[in-house]
């Protein structure tokens, strides 16, 4: 990212090649629309080129995943048919330094780890990330009590962290 700040096109190309399958995949899964997913992908990479300083520190893959999800949430908010339902908000805590425990990941590793979770934990986490719905809506759709959904998400995330970063305690 330091090289992109210096307007190094080759550095930008390398970031694009490494992460465009991730960005496009998240947008496609959330929006279920190839054109809209393409728009989000373009927007995310333009943001990286225009404001590389927006990435400060930490895990770049996690950061770009969140940027993509937030852009896709904006698109969902703008869709009139979704207006009746509240779209969740991602409120980052800029003053909290996130733990960075993962080395370079890929889709296969994360899918394998999610598959190893109990199905109800996996489904709550995936709906939470990709569904563009609040935990209350997840509870309504799955028929599980709200407290159960919350616990499934927390326990599932802790297990996922332990599986993908075995050096940390769950």
């Amino acid at each position: 990212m330091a090289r992109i700040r210096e307007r190094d096109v080759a550095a930008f190309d390398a970031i694009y090649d490494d992460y465009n399958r991730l960005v496009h995949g998240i947008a496609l899964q959330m929006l279920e629309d190839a054109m809209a997913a393409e728009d989000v992908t373009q927007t995310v990479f333009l943001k990286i080129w225009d404001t590389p300083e927006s990435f400060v520190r930490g895990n770049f893959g996690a950061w770009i995943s969140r940027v993509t999800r937030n852009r896709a949430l904006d698109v969902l908010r703008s869709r009139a048919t979704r207006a009746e339902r509240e779209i969740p908000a991602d409120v980052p805590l800029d003053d909290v330094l996130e733990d960075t425990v993962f080395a370079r990941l890929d889709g296969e590793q994360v899918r394998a780890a999610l598959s190893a979770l109990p199905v109800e934990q996996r489904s709550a986490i995936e709906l939470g990330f990709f569904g563009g719905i609040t935990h209350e809506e997840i509870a309504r759709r799955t028929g599980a009590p709200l407290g159960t959904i919350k616990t499934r998400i927390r326990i599932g995330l802790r297990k996922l962290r332990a599986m993908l970063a075995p050096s940390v305690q769950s």
Partner: protein
Amino acid sequence: MIHDNDLLDSVALLALGTLSAGEAKELAAHVSTCDTCRREYAELRETAAIVGYAAELSVDLQASRGRNRPT
């Protein structure tokens, strides 16, 4: 504040980003000032984001999409 599991469960939702805007802002204000919740949030935030990798397209699928790098 007593740190029952319900509060820590809510911190996990904040990390994943599934709270409503009002709930998220209210909880974020608390987390910023609470060591226990800050630690929970710091530990789960990266994990919550890498869930996105589950949707990473395969090289084959991407090849059919073509290369559309912004210019």
